[in-house]
């Protein structure tokens, strides 16, 4: 089994707003950056489960926009996780927390997820 959590997140979120791993490649708001820490679990025959704490940080200079984009990401991930077809059924995506903050006119809405990928 190959780890595909990052690819899945990009696939689900890339049409909502510019969506980057670790570092933004734009200075134009809004955009989102995500980080994750995958942990691999094995049987003696190979990998059977990968879990990760995922942090998606949505940035905007508009307080309403940051909430709208964050809500769209949450909705998209909920929809994806609820789809139990073979392709989607291998992910469990659970929202843990969603703190919001504003520093010097830039709003940040952080979505903290637990993601589990199984084979």
């Amino acid at each position, binding site marked *: 089994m190959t780890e595909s959590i990052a690819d899945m997140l990009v696939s689900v979120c890339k049409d909502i707003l510019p969506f980057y791993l670790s570092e933004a490649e734009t200075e134009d708001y809004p955009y989102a950056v995500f980080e994750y820490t995958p942990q691999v*679990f*094995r*049987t*003696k*025959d190979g990998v*059977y*489960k990968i879990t990760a704490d995922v942090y998606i940080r949505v940035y905007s200079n508009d307080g309403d926009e940051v909430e709208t984009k964050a809500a769209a990401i949450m909705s998209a991930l909920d929809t994806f996780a609820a789809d139990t077809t073979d392709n989607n059924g291998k992910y*469990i995506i659970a929202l843990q927390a969603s703190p919001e903050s504003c520093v010097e006119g830039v709003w940040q809405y952080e979505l903290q997820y*637990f993601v*589990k990928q199984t084979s």
Partner: protein
Amino acid sequence: MATSRVEGYNVSLTIGSKTLLGRTQEDLNISAVTKTSITKDDNGVQQESVVRHDVTFKVSALMSLDSETTHTKLDRDDVIALALATGSSAVVAVQYLCTGGDTYGGSAIITGYSESTAADPDTDSTISLDLKITGTFAKVTGGNG
């Protein structure tokens, strides 16, 4: 002489020629059973001698079911059937293999089986199997050493 560290996935216990499906851990324990004796010639110092060995295994695995008709591994239902066997059916042939090392074999009985299941989706359901060698546990084939 070169040395090599053995990775755990290169060690396996086969039960009736099959390993457990989803196995995560296989533990071997060999305990010497000793006899204590003392004669007047021992000058008050007890003597210990090994009379036999108790050889046990503990195998842990994810609780898994194999939907294939021909099972190449033992799934949860196979293991329960083995654990509930009685009489001569309860004796299984086992081999303990280590890639590059010696292979040991013998006959064993299943002395315990347990399952652990939880509601939390992040907690794996697991099974655990205890075996005890009956009779001899001896080298079957040699390895590189």
